[in-house]
């Protein structure tokens, strides 16, 4: 199956895009939701500011869902939704949308990502604490296995773990432990006789990096381990249920902002990793666009990625042979090695009491692996062409146009969506909504399956924010561990360099009278915290006192922390594309409470946005091409030092 991950701005615009893609030969839909929808907020919530329609489509109620799927034959469509914390809700809306066209839920096919543990570990769009989150997942699995049998209720993602720095062994073991946690929870809700079909409906979403031979071995290892788990832990015997089914989005972490055209060959090689051997071949592939490290891809960029798949599948002889690694000593050796490593790591997670309890352990391990990866790139042990070798380049015609080769979302979208939600609330049957929400709360407090009440709420016209708030009221809120506290400080890539920075930190600290203190903040709903975490760890290693409070903070929260903690400098990280709205708000909030500390910003920030940010008061802007963290630290200490001299 071929598809591209898509959705932006509004339901109507995304619908247009889907229809265009289907006309071009795409065979399924992959829906990207915006961050407010993913985290359970309506467009007019404070936390949604700057995020509406940015990384996907905003879906606030059944009306939005109906518009999103307008003219698309849902009974013949395979729809993959990248939705997790609010998956039960979006599935509910999808069921209602189908029902409005007279299509029974049993005819629906598709996937909800619904993997909450990797949200705690890597992606950050969780909404509820771990316990209730796992219960929602188990409810969905139990519901779909009988009522929507062609639905994959959960897609366990090792993808984001690799993006967060996981080694192949970590990617295999953490994701399998995650699946075990889900299956254990489901086993309490359905009988053993259904465990075969349940097991068979669990699919995976994996990553493929550019070391494509090892990556292929990784997938073979996962397949074998998965089958063993099915047989031994869950008593599954049917071969069809035991098959390791996975889809792929190839690696984004390795895609570079420098010489972005090189990403095309990286993507092709990564696609080979998941297609080369028939016995471990992906069922669905999504390829990122060549310019993902620059910003949101345009339709043409996505078309290029689809064409890569079509060339591989239809022009080459890739699909014509049986498994080409059958009997290969090298491949078998690699697979054995990975399986052995993964089993050992799975035992560690089990000792922690399973994946849910081991979230802090796994998170710290990932932060550590990522730190090691950056160290290897900084030291040159790991080559990135165009980044730390062969850096010279001719000017690129691909990025020469005015917008720098990316899609820009109309800022009006957010205001319109806010208004539209308010109108929706005003025009529906308020009593029916109240009744539906009361029932939802009652079910949430009980042991009953959440799906029926959720579908009823969708039908009554409840909004995404209301559904989520009702559950937050019952389940409480939660902040995931950041993992940075436990991160080891290893031998630096360039010891002399780090020593020099530490000396500078000491010198400036002496001048200030207390240690240089930095606040690392993540404003908005963006949960991609790798960058912030690595900056926090490195700043500590450089000798600073670092305040890092995790993701999803409002400008007011960041300003209050900066004031109360008495920091000398503020570092903000943002990858969702909402920097133009959020960064100036944070600066305004800081100045309002009387904090005049310099502000630096890191993230996926197009060149064209640098000047407006600096005009708003940002001292320095860093993008993925600034992989040298030492240089960033030097700049930050320099900034604080200037302030120290100025005020002395």
């Amino acid at each position, binding site marked *: 199956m071929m598809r591209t991950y898509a959705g932006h701005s509004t339901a109507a615009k995304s619908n247009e895009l889907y229809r265009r893609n289907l006309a071009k030969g795409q065979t399924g839909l992959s829906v990207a939701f915006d961050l407010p929808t993913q985290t359970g907020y309506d467009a007019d919530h404070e936390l949604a500011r700057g995020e509406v329609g940015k990384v996907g489509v905003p879906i606030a109620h059944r009306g939005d869902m109906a518009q999103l799927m307008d003219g698309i034959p849902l009974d013949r469509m395979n729809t993959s939704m990248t939705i997790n914390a609010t998956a039960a809700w979006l599935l509910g809306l999808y069921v209602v949308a189908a029902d409005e066209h007279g299509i029974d839920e049993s005819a629906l096919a598709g996937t909800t990502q619904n993997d909450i543990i990797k949200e705690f570990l890597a992606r950050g769009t969780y909404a509820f*604490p771990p316990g209730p989150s796992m219960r929602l997942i188990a409810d969905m699995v139990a519901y779909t296995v009988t009522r929507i049998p062609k639905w994959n209720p959960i897609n366990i993602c090792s993808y984001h773990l690799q993006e967060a720095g996981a080694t192949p062994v970590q990617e295999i073991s953490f994701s399998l432990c995650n699946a075990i946690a889900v299956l254990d929870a489901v086993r309490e809700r359905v009988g053993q006789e259904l465990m075969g079909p349940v097991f068979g409906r669990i699919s995976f979403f994996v990553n493929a990096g550019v070391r494509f031979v090892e990556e292929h071995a990784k997938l073979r290892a996962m397949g074998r381990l998965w089958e063993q788990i099915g047989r031994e832990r869950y008593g599954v015997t049917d071969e069809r249920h035991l098959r390791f089914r996975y889809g792929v989005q190839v690696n984004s972490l390795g895609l570079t902002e420098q010489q972005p055209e090189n990403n095309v060959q990286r993507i092709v090689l990564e696609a080979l990793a998941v297609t080369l051997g028939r016995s471990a071949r992906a069922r669905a592939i999504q390829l990122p666009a060549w310019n993902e490290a620059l910003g949101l891809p345009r339709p043409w960029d996505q078309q290029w990625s689809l064409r890569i798949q079509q060339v591989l599948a239809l022009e080459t002889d890739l699909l014509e042979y049986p498994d080409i690694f059958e009997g290969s000593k090298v491949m078998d050796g690699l697979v054995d090695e990975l399986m052995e490593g993964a089993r050992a790591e799975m035992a560690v997670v089990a000792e922690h009491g399973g994946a849910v309890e081991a979230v*802090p352990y796994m998170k710290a391990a990932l932060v550590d692996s990522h730190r090691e990866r950056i160290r290897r790139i900084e030291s040159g042990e790991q080559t990135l062409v165009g980044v730390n070798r062969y850096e010279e380049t001719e000017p690129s015609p691909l990025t020469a146009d005015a917008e720098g080769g990316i899609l820009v979302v109309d800022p009006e979208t957010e205001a319109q969506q806010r208004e539209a939600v308010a109108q929706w609330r005003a025009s529906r049957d308020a009593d029916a909504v109240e009744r539906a929400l009361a029932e939802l709360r009652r079910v949430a407090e009980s042991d009953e399956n959440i799906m029926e009440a959720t579908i009823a709420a969708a039908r009554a016209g409840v909004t995404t924010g209301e559904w989520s708030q009702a559950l937050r009221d*019952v*389940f*409480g*809120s939660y*902040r995931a*561990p*950041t993992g*940075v*506290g436990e991160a080891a*400080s290893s031998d630096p890539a360039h010891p002399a360099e780090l020593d020099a920075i*530490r000396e500078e*930190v*000491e010198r400036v600290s002496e001048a*200030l*009278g*207390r*240690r240089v203190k930095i606040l690392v903040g993540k404003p908005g709903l963006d949960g991609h915290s790798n960058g912030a975490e690595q900056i*926090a*760890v490195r*700043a*500590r*290693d*450089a*000798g*600073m*006192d*670092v*305040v*890092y*409070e*995790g993701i999803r903070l*409002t400008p*007011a*929260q960041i*300003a*209050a*922390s900066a*004031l*109360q*903690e*008495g920091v000398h400098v503020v570092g903000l990280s943002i990858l969702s594309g909402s920097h133009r709205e959020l960064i100036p708000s944070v600066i305004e909030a800081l100045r309002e409470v009387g904090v005049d500390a310099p502000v630096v910003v890191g993230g996926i920030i197009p060149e064209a946005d640098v000047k407006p940010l600096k005009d708003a008061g940002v001292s320095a802007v860093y993008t993925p091409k600034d992989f040298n963290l030492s240089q960033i630290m030097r700049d930050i200490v320099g900034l604080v030092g200037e302030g120290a001299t100025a005020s002395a």
Partner: protein
Amino acid sequence: MTDEPALAARLRDRDLAAAPAALNLIENRTRAAETAELLRDLSPAALGGEPPGHVVGVTGPPGAGKSSLLSALVRAWRQAGRTVAVLAVDPSSKRSGGSLLGDRARIESDPADPGVIVRSTAAGGRLGGLAPATRAAAQTLSAAFDVVVIETVGVGQSETEVAEVADTVAVIVQPGSGDALQFIKAGIMEVPDVLVVTKADLGDVALRARRDLVSALRSLGARDTPVLAVSSVAPTTGIDELVAALAAHREGLDLPERRAEARRTSALADFVAEHGERGMRALGGRRTALRFLDEHEAGLDVATLVERLEQRAGAAQ
């Protein structure tokens, strides 16, 4: 550049917005003289009585659930209209001298609420110890805030040091970790004023932990020490009881006596840090020195007491 008198006046008037600037001053090593002035201006002698804020030490091992508990406590205090300052002392301090703060101390509060402040500091490599400025910070903020919480990590040593600063010490343990029990039995840990078992939502495990602690305390003759089971995750339980237990402990205290005692101990520690064993010998040993301090007015601040000790040692040499 000195803004000390103004800061002292604002804190005396319970202007909470003065707190961040006061903390910046206290932590600044190059402004020690101003800090001493600030403490003098806010001493019981200057105020005409002990600063009104209740200084509560909260300590326990990593992972015991201190942050969630504190979030719930802060919420309860705020609902009761009490202002709260949290001083979180972080043990992480590496070879580099740097540290990661706040990671564990993220205490949920409304950023628009001026009645709460959270400040984290590095302990400076002293496991379970207080940051050098924490004592001064607690004394200063207790003039303006209703409750000042000192949060530290560890079991076994930290509560001893916290006890020298706090009016009430609560030790937090999670069920299943036998450390606190072992430490109490072995006499490594002093009996805290309040013992809290978190994660009461775990049910039987928490109840058993609570029972074990109660019987351990009883065998040590400390049958009055309250042992509470709380759950800080929704639905929270036991938080109101904990708030009441902390308040009850304070009411049962001879507060001026406990604080005067703490200031004397602190003054002696500061003196030793500055002048070493030799200075102590000049004072005629620890007992003589403490007796000497006992003769002074109870409301004097630490810096003044240190000065008196220095005068005495100088006279003896």
